[in-house]
């Protein structure tokens, strides 16, 4: 007997300039797993936020158990039986497992008004047993592994009689063994009539665990199919869908020798035996899904993370990149993944941000020469076509695309020979994207070696001269330009 647990009908949600969710209708039956797949920017995270009550929808209706509900706050979401297990776990690490499961609702002895710990522990053990777990309720959560913490979150959801459980990239931080355990847990939940929305990039997993698959793209619902009737390559095509060459310029490179050589980079438990070369004027793409280790590689190259083993040679010379300052000294520029918190200082002005990595160049003495600062800022505003009223406004007032251009301009000012850029065009309008691509093209012509870490498949395929596919912390395969299409790339990266 399958009842419609959750029905989202004609949901729309827009942010300034972006239609995040455009007329999306989804339904979820009791006891089923609905996989939702889509690229970055497809609208998955917005969907989660709406279900969790963290954001309010612009229009459309939500029904739980065939009754219309108004999820306008996290509390409302929980009261209506929706439980979201985020990628970033929000456990109370200093407290015990039982307390996390029962937070705010610990069982109380009616007579003494004291907490009935025995009952709490007994119930916790029961719930955990349903999840095939023998975690002790008394354990402090801080001592648990990531998987165990996730189980605690699931237990919390079940205890609150969640009807709909949303899991966001649940296996991103899990080992294969733990992932298998998680799947057993999901099977148990299904048997109890819980409906699960499973959001993941990993196509093999989605095919293994889900009953139906919904594909989203650019805020729209593309299709929903029964998993048993679907083909992996078909799903991936639906995810991608954009015509490749219409938007992205073909970047011709002029290779002139090896700029950087990475040998056997190792961070224990994170990345293993990473080796590659980047030539001058070449764009090397590094592609991997969430949890693959790509970001760790990027961070190691710019000196944010420590390497346990391995060597980096720049222009033939062995270099140790211990911190970002040394990276900059070695002419390695970078665009970090989080432009608001890592790339920019939001309260600073346009010109202050553009000159932040080159403060030493702002004059020969210890005083900042405003004329130099101004000219540098004006130069980049012009070169990158940054749309801003003037160079004195705070960058937080600018749009995403212009903010990203400022991050780019800031790092280009140091005349980098190597550029490590992560997700350069995420959340940016098409016009700004093209400007950035044009800039990258120019840089290639000038002989800059570019390492591009991106999960935007069309982008990385069309710009890069070569693409390295990374998964589980290792390099799986290398594609030269034209050797792979989008489906193959995504497929390779989704394998374990």
């Amino acid at each position, binding site marked *: 007997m399958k009842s419609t647990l959750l029905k989202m009908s004609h949901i729309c949600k827009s942010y300034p300039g972006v239609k995040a969710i455009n007329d999306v209708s989804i339904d979820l039956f009791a006891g089923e797993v609905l996989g939702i797949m889509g690229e970055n920017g497809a609208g998955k995270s917005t969907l989660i936020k709406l279900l969790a009550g963290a954001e309010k929808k612009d229009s459309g209706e939500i029904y739980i158990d065939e009754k219309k509900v108004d999820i306008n706050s*996290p*509390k409302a979401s929980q009261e209506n039986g929706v439980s979201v297990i985020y990628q970033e776990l929000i456990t*109370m690490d200093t407290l015990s497992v039982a*307390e996390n499961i029962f*937070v*705010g609702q610990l069982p109380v002895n009616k007579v003494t008004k004291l907490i009935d710990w025995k009952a709490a522990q007994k119930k916790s053990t029961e719930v955990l047993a349903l999840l095939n777990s023998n975690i002790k309720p008394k354990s402090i959560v801080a001592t648990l592994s990531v998987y165990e913490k996730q189980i605690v979150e699931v237990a919390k959801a079940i205890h609150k009689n969640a009807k709909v459980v949303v899991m966001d990239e649940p296996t991103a931080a899990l080992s294969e063994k733990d992932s298998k355990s998680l799947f057993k847990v999901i099977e148990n939940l299904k048997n109890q009539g819980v409906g699960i929305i499973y959001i993941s990039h990993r196509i093999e997993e989605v095919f293994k665990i889900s009953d139906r698959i919904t594909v989203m793209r650019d805020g729209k619902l593309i299709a929903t199919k029964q998993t048993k009737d679907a083909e992996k390559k078909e799903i991936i095509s639906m995810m991608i869908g954009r015509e490749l060459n219409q938007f992205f310029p073909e970047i011709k490179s002029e290779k002139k020798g090896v700029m950087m050589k990475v040998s056997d980079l190792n*961070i224990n438990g994170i990345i293993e035996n990473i080796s590659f070369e980047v030539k001058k004027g070449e764009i090397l793409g590094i592609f991997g899904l969430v949890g693959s280790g790509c970001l760790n590689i990027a961070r190691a190259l710019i000196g944010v993370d420590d390497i346990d083993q391995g060597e980096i040679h720049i222009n033939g010379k062995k270099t140790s990149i211990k911190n970002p300052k040394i990276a900059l000294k070695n002419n390695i520029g970078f665009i970090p993944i989080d432009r608001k918190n890592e790339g920019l200082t939001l309260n600073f002005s346009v010109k202050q941000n553009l000159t932040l990595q080159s403060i030493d160049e702002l004059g020969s003495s210890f005083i900042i020469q405003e004329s130099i600062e101004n000219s540098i800022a004006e130069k980049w505003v012009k070169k990158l076509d940054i749309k801003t009223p003037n160079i004195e406004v705070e960058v937080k007032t600018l749009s995403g695309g212009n903010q990203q251009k400022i991050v780019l301009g800031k790092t280009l000012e140091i005349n980098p020979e190597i550029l490590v850029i992560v997700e350069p065009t995420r959340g940016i309008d098409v016009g700004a994207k093209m400007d950035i691509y044009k800039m990258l093209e120019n840089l290639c012509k000038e002989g800059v070696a570019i390492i591009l870490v991106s999960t935007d498949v069309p982008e990385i395929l069309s710009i890069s001269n070569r693409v390295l596919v990374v998964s589980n912390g290792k390099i799986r395969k290398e594609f030269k330009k034209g050797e792979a299409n989008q489906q193959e790339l995504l497929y390779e990266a989704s394998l374990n």
Partner: protein
Amino acid sequence: MKVWLKKLIYSDDIVGALGIFLVLLVVFFSVMTPHFFSLMNFNSIIGNIPAMAILCLGLTFVVLVGDLDLSLGSILGITAILAVFFFKVMHFPLWLNLVSCVIIGGIFGAFNGAIVTKIGINSIITTLGTMALIRGLTYWIAMDVDAMQVGRITDPAFLNFGRYYFPEKSRLIPITLVYLVILYGASALFLNHTSFGRQIYAVGSNEATARLAGINVKRVRFVCFIIAGMLSAFGGLVLVAQLGLGEAYTGQNMILEVVTAVVLGGVLLTGGKGRLTGVIIAVLILGVIRNGMVHLEQVTDISFYWRDVAKGVILLLAIGLYSVRKSFNAKRLRTRQ
């Protein structure tokens, strides 16, 4: 890395380590000085700590919830003055005096709590401000209100409140010890076994998650400030009873030691973690050091004032150890992205 160092850094049971440290200290002073190890001296140590211990209890509530309260010494001070005033001028009976002062302490605590939760100012700056404000009020009342120039309290009932011993003849157990046992015991029960007590820990551990779970975060924080205020007032009453008088400067320099004891006792400054057992042992440790240093000065040439330096060093070591642990753990918990 050496095993004992690793254990020190990774182990979660600080109470055990504190207990051992306390024992070592007692042994050290007993060996180095002739009169340290005696019943009379131990009674003296215990007699000196009640006010401090009660303030530490109050501060623990606030720190557990993730805040800090630097005004507790001032609340103790104003209570001391008011207690004398109520007694000598208003002729309150003991019970009325006690109740009024504790209520006033709670009001000051509520003032702190309101500023922190309603206006949203950082608790450190807030209580820095109220610390000065209340101390200023204390001096004003003590010096300018003519009726306050009262001198000592001589009423035996009041004095007994702080000085009584059981049993009367052999003077074994001071009544202040009883207060501590009751207050710490009740607080432990409250914090560990009641719903609200666990909410305090929840808010301190992860405020956002607590809020999501429906806990009224503002109310929890507010109440903790009130509790701290009331306990500080009680501590002031005990101190006045012990000393026989209350002056404008009473409690003026206590807050540093109170913070040291709480931090040393293993209460996490970020909130959500801490055991009262640790706090009371830390209080004893500081008390033993203070007492022991006095004895040490009589035997050696080591100035008694080194104890303040020692307290500062202990605070830094305690926090330093915690910070080092945090860095090690952060490195251990790297994830693949």
